[in-house]
């Protein structure tokens, strides 16, 4: 622990789970508390949430995988609840014998300070190097006088003198060098290297050159050499030369650095010695001119690079400079050797020694790209300006203090301020906004944008009042304008006129809450009102009621007469319903043929009377289309809306179920939702049905019954058995359940198709089991509407038939109800075509039940019409029924199909149907259904 405290930074030790074991003094100085405060706490406690996430998503995985973490940035929460950036290092180790993690937290402010010092030291060094470079000229001029390496070689090239530095450089003792020949120094290599200059010096010409010359240890050194000839003052004879050689390695490095910096910045340097007229270029200047690095131009050659019209300008500038005039800073074009034109910035100034101008020095920079960008920016700016002038939105810009700097024409029109007048005004002056409803001044979005530095989004209900008092409904937004470093320069405010839009939005909200077809409230709005009513019921314990109304025959009308007739029907029903409820009640179309009525402050009894009245009116109502009349029944579910309900979806569900119950009970009636206990029981009952059916299917607890069908054509030859397959469910106790009891539940729970399949398989199995199958002529099997609409069932049925083979298929006849066929016309037509191709026949069951038209028969190829029992039951008493049946028989003859009369339960009925010409009959009179096994034997 003492060790931990000796660390100069915050530190802690945690166990493998991240629980703190130790914290040191330095850490506690930041986060406060004692050792006990933190021990056994999760280490996250030390950090704010963001750092906790980073710790868990990044650092722990890393630490667990690699056992150490280096230099991650986190934030520590200090005593004043401020965030303190820390650099985190962690490493796995042990503490008191257990695995532990050691964490050090380096407050980055300290670190930055340290780094800043390093940086400034480095900068100082760089500055020094620059200064060195600047003094290059000076250094060069004094090397003559204060040489580092000095030697004297006579005309025979024998060394007569060498100073200490010279000797050391070449690693010679004085006695070795003095008297030796230059040609022998470095094995003649040096002589070879410098021969030209040596001979030049011996010819009496002073020499100055720079050359890298390695020292005795092979370390390269950059040398500036001056060979000064020793000329006899009287004879003019060259006696030898003084070699003064300066080590300019450091200087050269500085110069190199300058050159490199110049290259990075694209800046070159040049210098004209006014004494000699010689010109010096840096490599960068050469690069800008596009020429080789060994090319050294004369001043005239350099000027010739300028584009012709620029030549006089630069010449004049240089001449002025040479004459001691001021410097220059010009942007001109040059033509490079490869013909490319470049823009350059040429800067020159004169250096004096005393009063005398000695040098013209300057910088040279390729600014082509910069000029291109500038031009592009100007172009963009122009484009932007034109855009802002022409867009439909109003735009105002302000500076960082909220004073207007500019507005576009739309903004001018809407505010009534011209740009010249508005400029410099506080925005509030120019842009006066109030809340549409309260007329109170609204918070200025520009000020908010300036304060928060964020985009301020659209605000609703804002009204702009122009200078002339005109009012505009507007939507506005303001965004800060920032420079590259993120400082806010001002704000741009964009707004547009939504006056017209707001007027329309009233209409829009009507549309959003109403059904376009009927003009009634729509489902969404109905749900909202229901929610509101339920809320109120919870508040005041009031009683309200909900009715769910479903039309019984809507589909039939829609399918038989088309959608526009369906629409007309819905409109008429909506009107009729509207007449049945109070004006303050909510009447809504909930979708399709479903309507809802919300009766506020209305007991179930009162509502029940309203519902009954609706039923009666609907019962009397006929929808007439093309001289055809349709009776449209309604099934109504009634649910009290009171505090017993916790949410509206339960109410809607209850209403839906009640509506179904009304349908199940025989349509055109009201079903009142039972009190909740009973309701639950009922629902449980239904649920039980689902389970019971599933179990019965799983355990094969169904039994096939059959009822014989008799031919009425006495002249026909004797045929085999003709029967309809019926179904019974066998309870576990052996009792039988009639299909009327379980089929509605089967449809509700989508089990009808499974039951149909079961029946098909077992009927076919029975047929296959017969020793002599020719004893059976026709076996009719019912298929539910659900199966007709279910393509999966289609596929399965076809598989079953294909497997059964043609000998069985030709004995099968599927009974499909007329309603199912009409409701699923497309699916039914497809299914019928497919199964008939396999020789399976089709009977239309309950024919005439929803009869309105026979037109659809053209689309469906059927083999038998099975006349609905309601026409047969009292055939002999009801002349209309008699006429109807005659009509059906005629239709059947026209399209060439057979007819069956069901529910034949009296001898006189049998006689009449035979008389009318019906082909077959079935009913209790002829045969009581019995287990299928028995129908052949009986």
């Amino acid at each position, binding site marked *: 622990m003492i060790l931990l405290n000796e660390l100069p930074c915050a530190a802690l030790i945690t166990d*493998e*789970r*991240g*629980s703190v074991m130790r914290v040191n003094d330095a850490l506690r100085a930041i986060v406060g508390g004692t050792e006990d405060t933190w021990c056994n706490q*999760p280490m*996250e406690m030390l950090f*704010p*949430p*963001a*750092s*906790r*996430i*980073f*710790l*868990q*998503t*990044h650092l*722990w*995985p*890393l630490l*667990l*995988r*690699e056992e150490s973490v*280096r*230099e*991650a*940035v*986190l*934030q520590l929460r200090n005593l004043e609840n401020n965030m303190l*950036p820390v*650099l985190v290092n962690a490493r796995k180790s042990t503490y008191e014998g257990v695995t532990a993690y050691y964490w050090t937290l380096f407050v*980055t402010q300290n670190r930055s300070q340290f*780094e800043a010092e*390093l*940086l400034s030291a*480095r900068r100082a060094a760089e500055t020094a190097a620059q200064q060195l470079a600047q003094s290059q000229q000076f250094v060069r001029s004094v090397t003559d006088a204060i040489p580092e390496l000095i030697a004297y070689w006579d005309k025979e090239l024998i060394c007569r003198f060498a100073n200490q530095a010279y000797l050391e450089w070449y690693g010679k003792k004085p006695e070795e060098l003095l008297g030796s020949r230059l040609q022998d120094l470095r094995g003649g290599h040096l002589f070879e290297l410098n021969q030209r200059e040596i001979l030049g010096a011996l010819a009496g010409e002073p020499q100055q050159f720079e050359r890298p010359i390695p020292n005795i240890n092979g370390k390269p050194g950059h040398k500036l050499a001056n060979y000064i000839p020793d000329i006899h003052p009287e004879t003019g004879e060259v006696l030898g030369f003084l070699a003064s050689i300066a080590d300019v390695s450091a200087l050269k490095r500085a110069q190199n650095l300058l050159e490199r910096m110049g290259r990075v910045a694209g800046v070159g340097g040049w210098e004209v010695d006014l004494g000699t007229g010689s010109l010096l270029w840096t490599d960068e200047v050469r690069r800008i001119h596009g020429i080789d690095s060994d090319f050294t131009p004369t001043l005239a050659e350099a000027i010739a690079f300028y584009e012709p019209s620029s030549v006089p300008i630069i010449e004049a500038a240089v001449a002025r400079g040479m004459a001691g005039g001021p410097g220059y800073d010009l942007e001109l074009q040059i033509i490079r050797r490869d013909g490319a034109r470049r823009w350059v910035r040429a800067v020159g100034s004169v250096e004096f020694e005393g009063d005398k101008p000695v040098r013209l020095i300057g910088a040279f920079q390729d600014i082509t790209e910069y000029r291109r960008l500038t031009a592009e920016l100007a172009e963009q700016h122009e484009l932007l300006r034109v855009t802002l002038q022409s867009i439909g939105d109003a735009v105002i810009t302000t500076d960082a203090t909220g004073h207007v700097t500019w507005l576009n024409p739309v903004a001018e029109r809407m505010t009534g301020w011209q740009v010249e007048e508005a400029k410099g005004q506080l925005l509030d002056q120019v842009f006066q906004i109030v809340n549409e409803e309260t007329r109170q001044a609204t918070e200025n979005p520009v000020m908010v944008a300036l304060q928060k530095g964020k985009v301020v989004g659209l605000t609703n209900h804002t009204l702009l009042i122009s200078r002339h008092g005109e009012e505009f409904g507007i939507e506005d937004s303001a965004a800060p304008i920032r420079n590259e470093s993120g400082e806010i320069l001002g704000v741009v405010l964009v707004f547009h006129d939504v006056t017209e839009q707001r007027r329309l939005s009233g209409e829009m909200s009507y549309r959003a809450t109403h059904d376009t077809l009927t003009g009634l409230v729509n489902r969404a709005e109905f749900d909202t009102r229901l929610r509101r009513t339920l809320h109120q019921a919870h508040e005041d314990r009031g009683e309200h009621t909900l009715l769910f109304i479903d039309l019984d025959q809507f589909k039939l009308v829609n399918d038989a007469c088309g959608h526009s007739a369906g629409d007309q029907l819905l409109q008429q029903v909506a009107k009729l319903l509207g007449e049945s409820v109070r004006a303050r009640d909510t009447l809504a179309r909930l979708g399709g043929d479903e309507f809802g009525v919300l009766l506020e402050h209305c007991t179930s009894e009162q509502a029940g009377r309203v519902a009954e009245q609706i039923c009666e009116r609907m019962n009397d109502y006929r929808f007439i289309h093309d001289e055809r009349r349709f009776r449209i029944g309604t099934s109504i579910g009634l649910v009290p809306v009171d505090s017993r309900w916790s949410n509206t979806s339960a109410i809607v569900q209850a209403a839906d179920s009640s509506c179904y119950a009304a349908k199940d009970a025989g349509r055109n009636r009201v079903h009142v939702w039972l009190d909740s206990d009973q309701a639950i029981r009922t629902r449980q009952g239904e649920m039980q049905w689902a389970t019971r059916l599933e179990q019965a299917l799983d355990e094969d607890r169904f039994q096939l019954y059959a009822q014989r069908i008799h031919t009425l054509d006495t002249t026909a030859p004797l045929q085999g058995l003709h029967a309809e397959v019926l179904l019974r469910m066998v309870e576990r106790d052996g009792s039988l359940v009639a299909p009327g009891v379980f089929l509605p539940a089967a449809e509700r729970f989508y089990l009808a198709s499974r039951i149909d399949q079961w029946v098909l398989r077992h009927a076919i199995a029975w047929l296959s089991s017969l020793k002599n199958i020719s004893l059976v002529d026709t076996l009719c099997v019912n298929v539910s509407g659900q199966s007709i609409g279910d393509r999966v069932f289609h596929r399965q049925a076809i598989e079953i038939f294909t497997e059964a083979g043609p000998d069985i298929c030709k004995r099968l006849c599927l009974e499909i109800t007329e309603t199912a066929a009409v409701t699923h016309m497309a699916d039914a037509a497809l299914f019928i075509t497919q199964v008939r191709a396999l020789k399976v026949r089709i009977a239309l069951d309950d024919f005439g039940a929803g009869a309105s038209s026979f037109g659809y028969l053209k689309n469906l190829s059927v083999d038998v019409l099975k006349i609905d029992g309601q026409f047969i039951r009292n055939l002999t008493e009801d002349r209309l029924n008699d006429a109807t049946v005659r009509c059906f028989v005629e239709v059947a003859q026209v399209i060439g199909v057979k007819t069956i009369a069901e529910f034949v339960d009296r001898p006189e009925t049998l006689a009449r149907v035979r008389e009318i010409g019906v082909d077959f009959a079935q009913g209790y009179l002829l045969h009581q259904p019995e287990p299928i096994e028995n129908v052949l034997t009986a």
Partner: protein
Amino acid sequence: MNILTRNNVHVEGANKPVLLYAHGFGCNQDMWSRLTPAFQETHQQVLFDYVGSGKSDASAFTEARYSSLQGYAQDVIEVCEALELRQGVTLVAHSVSCSIGILAAIQRPELFERLILIGPSPCFLNDPPSYAGGFEREDLEGLLSLMEQNYMGWARYLAPVVAGETGGEAVSTELSESFCSTDPHIMGIFARATFFADNRADLPNVTCPSLILQHQNDALAPLSVGEYIHAHLSQSTLKVLDVSGHCAHMSNPGLVAAALREYLKA
């Protein structure tokens, strides 16, 4: 594009039930290395990196796709498709991958047999009064800025300057490389997708059974979040591991392997 390369997919074993491992935000498939040996004998194990993480092909990253978790769910599904897995996959997901896995399982229910959710959170943000995800929006903004600092790093900017012209490079790349992604932009998008996601409404739509492995002390996904998921995910089993932190499969792989094996057996 080859999905197996794009997502750096690795498959170990064959002809055995499939475990598909999906790593969390800020990590890559290496994080599973302590868990996978436990199932070497019994399972075919599939490992991958999300596009943008680990050694995936970052050039396949598009902001449009990966700025919501649905895009990552697509990665999971595409990896399965590329391996021609059609059913029976057990997805082992960590942290944000749990939400990603849930989206994938809703989209392709036939594909996944079970979900193993390690430290899941359907929503990291608080939604008072009913839901405490543990964080506020500004906390997550703070995270983004921390990530920026750590990825871009003081080291990257300052080290070369301090160390002179050379020698800084090696130091500067080390930290961000160990964070499993070299691109702060991509991680920023992943972070937003992760921490601003709210997948609570998706929970009831999952049809396959799931095992929720919750950490006893987890700053990112508190116990209440685990209970929330358990309550809204049908057929889910909740098991709280006596583990602190957010990465039980790394810190206590034995515990996780045991819980997994027990669940897979049942």
